[in-house]
């Protein structure tokens, strides 16, 4: 009973308390501004889904802040007015989990693949080629998430990689593949999917267990909780799942 009263009170507060025009509702229609903080690797998928939600609800304006997961976590902790947070890193989300309304749920997964320049000039076939000092190899530095994941893959495979450069992020590693300056790099499947025809992916069976899981949650202090819920539902719908799969994500 107490819970019901509290819930009702919350609804009343939500209905009349917010007066800054961010969550104006008209006849149950979503409106105002929805602010989504999301990991940079979600840029393409989420932008499309946001456009779709806006076209379904003409009064709604969806704003995105795409950045690294640790930067997003910091911004949310510092009180940034976000409605939804989608992270590429479960650990980073754990740090802000108590700011969420409900538990975060994993909605997508990303795995590492070998990226090679179109045509695979150095004839790279698998992870063992990345331990070949004669080949020019780019990996992410151990300090950034893709580098930590790569280290786990090599550990599991019992290989010592022979990188020529340890890149500051996954896109920098991919750029060097696109330019043909390295023979191969270990990057995320989604990055290869986004890079187009200049880059080819080689599946890495050894990487199957090293998975980056993407959690998603509505924030407790979301200025526009209804729109936030609608966006999360869209991401988890068949449409959302299809868009994620097309972008190279695995679905849990």
């Amino acid at each position, binding site marked *: 009973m107490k819970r019901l009263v509290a819930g009702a009170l919350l609804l009343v507060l939500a209905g009349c308390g917010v007066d800054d025009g961010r969550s104006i509702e008209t006849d149950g229609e979503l409106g105002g501004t929805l602010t989504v903080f999301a990991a940079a690797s979600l840029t393409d998928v989420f932008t499309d889904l946001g456009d779709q939600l806006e076209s379904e609800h003409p009064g709604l304006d969806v704003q995105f802040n795409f950045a690294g997961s640790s930067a997003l976590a910091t911004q949310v902790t510092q009180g940034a007015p976000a409605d939804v947070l989608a992270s590429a890193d479960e650990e980073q989300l754990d740090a802000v989990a108590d700011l969420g309304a409900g538990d975060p749920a994993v909605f997508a997964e990303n795995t590492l693949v070998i990226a090679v320049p179109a045509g695979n000039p150095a004839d790279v076939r698998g992870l063992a080629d990345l331990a070949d000092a004669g080949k020019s190899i780019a990996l992410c530095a151990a300090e950034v998430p893709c580098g930590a994941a790569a280290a786990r893959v090599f550990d599991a495979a019992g290989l010592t990689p022979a990188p*020529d450069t*340890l890149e500051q992020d996954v896109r920098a590693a991919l750029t060097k593949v696109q330019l043909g300056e390295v023979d191969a790099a270990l990057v995320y499947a989604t990055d290869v999917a986004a890079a187009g025809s200049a880059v080819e992916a080689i599946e890495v069976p050894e990487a199957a267990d090293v998975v980056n899981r993407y959690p998603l949650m509505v924030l407790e202090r979301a200025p526009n909780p209804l729109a936030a819920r609608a966006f999360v539902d869209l991401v988890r719908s068949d449409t959302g799942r299809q868009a994620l799969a097309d972008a190279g994500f695995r679905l849990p």
Partner: protein
Amino acid sequence: MTHPVGPKSRLWPQRQGRGGGVPAPLLVPALLGVAFLVLPLLGLLVRAPWSDLGPQLARPGVGEALRLSLVSATLATVVSLLLGVPLAWVLARSQVRGRSVLRALVTVPLVLPPVVGGVALFLVLGRQGIIGRWLFEATGFSLPFTTAAVVVAETFVAMPFLVISVEGALRAADARFEDAAATLGADRWTTFRRVTLPLVAPGIAAGAVLCWARALGEFGATITFAGNFPGTTQTMPLAVYLTLQRDPEAAIVLSLVLLGVSLATLLLLRDRWLGRGAVT
């Protein structure tokens, strides 16, 4: 001849000794300027984990990165001097047509985001680059991801600072000394060596310092073109950036080390070679 005294310096010698104070319209903005430049440094000093200093410095790779930074920045400055001083002379003294276009082209690296500069270097000197491809096919040598690539990237970004400084010094220098040398029968090369160079030496020194400092702090072009590998291409700014991803406090310590070493070097050089009161 090493200390040419122009007519101007003879006119204003007593000025420095006068304790007239700085006029308020200059003093207030000047103080604001100092605060703006120094406060962030103060922030680093305040936040630095001083008790951690020893262990952080002893970490493997720190000494290596520092040594690599100093060596590559110095080499980049040497290359910049060898190419940049003649270039500045051409811009300031010669009658070559299209000098203003040339000057604009030379300053491109100043406005180019360094990361873009790194990609541009790939397109010319990389394994698939216009020149690099030919080099790779002929010799099997590929420049990216080598220490030489660090020097190339730093030179690309830092040399314009030297060129601009030296060109300014050349323009400000009194050309009548050169004319006098010419009337005494010196050819242009001799005039350049015996008259022009000593005349603009403080300007060259200032440009070299600026160039060295810029090369020492270079990040974007280096990490793009030379990559990042400890001992080969990981300079201090790269080490600082990557440490920042995991351990911000350690990154602050590394920044302070770089800052301390560079300030000490500059002060030492200033005393040693530039003498007191030199233009820096």
